[in-house]
């Protein structure tokens, strides 16, 4: 008995091994890589080992002692892995702008020069500035919280206490907040349009229902870019909507519909509407049709029947639709870039800048991690909320 039970369990486990392997390789491993990239900071201690040892004893005042400078020259001479050196340069330049040219120039000079002693300050007078040396010293510890702090506009000052970035230097927090705000507005707009639409579709039969469903599905099969560009054509100042309104005489000058939040919300709502309509529709299909008639026969008016019967029954669909729309919306990038204004860019455009623009994967990973954390908190709240109506219903 026992062995067959074990065998069955092993067999079941073997069946889901491909799934587990898939999740591990394409979900957990990349996620772990990005988390690691945001906190591991060992490039300087790896590529500049002698400097890392020597600079720790420096008190941070004035120029560091000669041994440190010589250690750096020696490290640069020994650095034969150019890609690793490049990573170090990128890390340091991200802390202090200017390191890129400074270190590249110094490394080239050190390699060309045959004699052992190189005077760094005469090579480039930026080596006289303590801030460059301080940046090296700060980069010695193998783990760092600077990326995570920078992702929410914080940093450590000279004493190591956490302080806010100067106003005007960074806006990640604001952009993050804006991302959630836009996603919330879009979710609300989708719910306001999607719920009645799904109810209408579920109430119809035959070809009418098919037409209504096709109207939702066809956009879903169309490329996101095409749909966004279509809105561009509709919304612009000389576009169809403004043209029609002006021709009818409703407005004198074109309404500002594009390159602002209005345009972003309209376009994103349209793009994401199917994710709201379909879950609600599928829930409503399972609601017996005679429930509304039963409510009416017991004296409830149409509004009351809707409020007490149909709405609570469609709530699970509404909640999962809202969750889907919200989750997809916070990652949006193309639509705000094309139809949004300066103040509508979302956090994914900042992540893209660090990931593809400057190869600063640490900061990109940290921003992604913060986004993931906030989303998980929201998901947890959703989990709590979505349980309560069933309890009430029961």
């Amino acid at each position, binding site marked *: 008995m026992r062995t067959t039970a074990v065998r069955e369990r092993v067999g079941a486990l073997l069946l889901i091994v491909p799934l587990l392997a898939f999740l591990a390789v394409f979900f957990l491993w990349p996620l772990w890589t990005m988390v690691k990239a945001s906190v591991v900071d060992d490039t300087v201690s790896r590529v500049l080992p002698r400097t890392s040892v020597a600079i720790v004893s420096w008190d941070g005042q004035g120029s560091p002692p000669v041994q440190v400078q010589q250690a750096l020259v020696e490290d640069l001479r020994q650095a034969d892995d150019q890609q690793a050196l*490049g990573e170090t340069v990128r890390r340091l330049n991200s802390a202090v702008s200017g390191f890129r040219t400074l270190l590249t120039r110094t490394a080239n000079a050190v390699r060309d020069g045959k004699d052992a002693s190189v005077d760094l300050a005469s090579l480039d007078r930026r080596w006289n500035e303590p801030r460059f040396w301080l940046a090296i010293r700060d980069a010695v510890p193998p783990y760092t919280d600077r990326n995570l702090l920078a992702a929410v506009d914080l940093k450590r000052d000279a004493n190591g206490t956490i302080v806010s970035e100067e106003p*005007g*230097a960074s806006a990640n927090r604001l952009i993050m907040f804006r991302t959630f705000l836009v996603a919330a507005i879009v979710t609300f707009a989708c719910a306001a349009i999607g719920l009645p639409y799904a109810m209408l579709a579920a109430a119809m039969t035959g070809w009418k229902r098919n037409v209504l469903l096709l109207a939702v599905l066809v956009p879903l099969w169309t490329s996101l870019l095409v749909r966004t560009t279509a809105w561009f054509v509709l919304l612009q*100042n000389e576009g169809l909507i403004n043209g029609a309104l002006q021709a009818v005489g409703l407005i004198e000058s074109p309404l500002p519909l594009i390159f602002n939040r209005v345009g972003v919300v309209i376009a994103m709502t349209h793009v994401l509407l199917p994710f709201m309509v379909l879950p609600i529709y599928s829930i409503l299909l399972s609601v017996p049709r005679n429930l509304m008639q039963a409510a009416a026969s017991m004296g409830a008016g149409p509004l009351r029947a809707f409020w007490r019967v149909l709405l609570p029954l469609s709530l699970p669909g509404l909640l999962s639709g809202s969750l889907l729309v919200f989750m997809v919306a916070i*990652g949006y990038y193309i639509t705000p870039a094309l139809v949004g*204004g*300066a103040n509508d860019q979302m956090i994914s455009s*900042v992540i893209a*800048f660090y990931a593809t623009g400057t190869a600063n994967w640490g900061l990109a990973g940290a921003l992604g991690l913060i986004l993931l954390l906030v989303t998980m908190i929201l998901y947890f709240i959703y989990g709590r909320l979505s349980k309560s109506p069933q309890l009430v219903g029961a």
Partner: protein
Amino acid sequence: MNSAKILSIAGCISALLAGWSVQAVQARDLTVVSWGGNYQDAQRKIYFEPFSQKTGKPVLEESWDGGIGVIAAKVKAGTPNWDVVQVEAEELALGCADGFYEKIDWSKLGGKDQFLPAAVDDCGAGAIVWSTALSYDANRLKEAPTSWADFWDVNKFPGKRGLRRGPKYALEFALMADGVAPSEVYKELATPEGIDRAFKKLDQLKPHIVWWESGAQPLQLLASGEVVMTSAYNGRISGINKSEGKNFKVVWPGSVYAIDSWVILKDSPNKDQAMEFIAFASQPDNQVKLPDYIAYGLPNKEAAAKVPAEIQKDLPTAPENLAHSVALDADFWIDNIEELNKRFNAWLAQ
């Protein structure tokens, strides 16, 4: 969407590490990557297809939007799935310093002295000289703007303006609008006061700016009348004038020019063929065909000299166009892009 992109990049790396696609990579044909749009259409006709005919092997092509992070991800994956890439000046400098590119064999290209000095690099061979300049639709504007000061003058030229989103170019143009001479722009930007000055100047125009990101957008903005003037890439302007009969004009004084280069990604499996391709695309007889399609300057001196005069006047390399323009300072931007982009985003959000 983009965290998903990062994950997928990491996913690709993992697949490569697992050794799945090694064989597929070895069997891959030469892959050339450029900037898409009407520019790549022209390159296909004069470089990709003739080269493929000459060698008897297919040439695969892709397009990209730039970014050293893309190159870094490809190279660090071990065996890149791109071979030849056309990169901007910053990507050339960054990638060369980081060891992402193979060295160029200049003897195969006919020697370094055949090219403009600025187009010669250990890691890259210059492909075009291109310009970002003030552009407007001459059919809509009765009076022609002549400078960045006009661009900033919303009383004289009412309406919106288009600028590329990001600090690069916007800061240069703002300083010139504020009266800085083209030759002094980067000297001014090198000081914190200069950067403050540029942002302050941008403040004045902020409510009137429509920000664009990809090179095709400013053309659309101009064509639809959404903006009265915009910064744009000069080749695209001449391209759309030719293909769609527009009357867009380029204002050369105050334009910023730069050189794009061909590079070969490190450890490319088609290294030799890639070098042959770059040599083919650098031959004067092949290069000289480019300005017929799109008005970019040619880095090969012999090719540049062969361009007919009526086309020459629309190129960034024409002496009268060069006279009052600025050479993009790639060193300034590779040092400062991260910090200034952060500040630019904060400034936009204010």
